[in-house]
């Protein structure tokens, strides 16, 4: 004799989490930390052929204040790493991070004195995309994975 049977079928009962997550999932504002070749491939994902707009993440926010998702697209040198860390801290919770391409995930082909071998040593990365540069379909698949993570998020955990 739950509440549902009282309300019959004309009122939908849901939790605040489900509504908030559903809203956030389909309107992620990515912050493109585009440094190198992966940024060009990220542009292809946004352009008309592969069209990230179908997934709701088309509106780029270059200022971290309104971003939900940081996409580190390209290799990160030791001079750029403090900037990436600072911008990651400036993004308000809840936030997610994608390491796009081999260079951001693990330093890629450049094992040199000036390249950070993978940004996950310093900032928490949720989804890695393999490829150098990954195809736009790979980026879209990573976005769908991030949307699944956004679904499981909950207000209680964050308090």
């Amino acid at each position, binding site marked *: 004799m739950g509440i549902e049977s009282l309300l019959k079928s004309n009122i939908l009962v849901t939790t605040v989490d489900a509504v908030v997550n559903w809203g956030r999932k389909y309107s992620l504002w990515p912050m493109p930390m585009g440094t190198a070749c992966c940024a060009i491939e990220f542009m292809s994902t946004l352009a008309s052929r592969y069209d990230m707009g179908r997934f709701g993440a088309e509106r780029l926010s270059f200022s971290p204040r309104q971003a939900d998702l940081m996409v580190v697209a390209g290799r990160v040198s030791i001079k750029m790493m403090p900037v990436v860390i600072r911008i990651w*801290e*400036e993004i308000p919770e*809840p936030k997610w991070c994608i390491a796009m391409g081999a260079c951001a995930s693990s330093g890629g082909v450049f094992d040199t004195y000036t390249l950070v071998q993978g940004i996950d040593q310093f900032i928490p990365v949720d989804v890695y995309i393999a490829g150098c540069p990954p195809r736009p379909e790979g980026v879209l698949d990573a976005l769908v994975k991030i949307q699944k993570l956004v679904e499981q998020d909950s207000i209680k955990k964050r308090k």
Partner: protein
Amino acid sequence: MLKEYLPILILLVFAFVFAFGTLLLSHFVGPRKYSDVKGEPYESGIKPFMDARVRFSVKFYIIAMLFIIFDIEIVFLYPWVVVYKEIVSQGIFIFIEMIVFVAILLIGYFYLWKRGAFEWE
């Protein structure tokens, strides 16, 4: 008489409820984690050199003032236009009245023009 204003009241109430509702909702639903870096101004990823509250040229302030003056002038035109149709049949006075109002402001406009308040460089 009061009944005509009911829709406006409903609009105001709805706006008030919606505005403060979303504020309260985000206050309870949104997380708040303060960190020192999050409080600093964002300057493309670099620690800002100096505070942005700095004395810059006065021309920005003057242009803002001029805008307000002439904007208010337009606001006064609105009610005049609404009632213009009915009253103009009784007499031409309403038209003269507005011409005088606009003329006074035109004098101010030419004075500013001569003083060079509009040169930007």
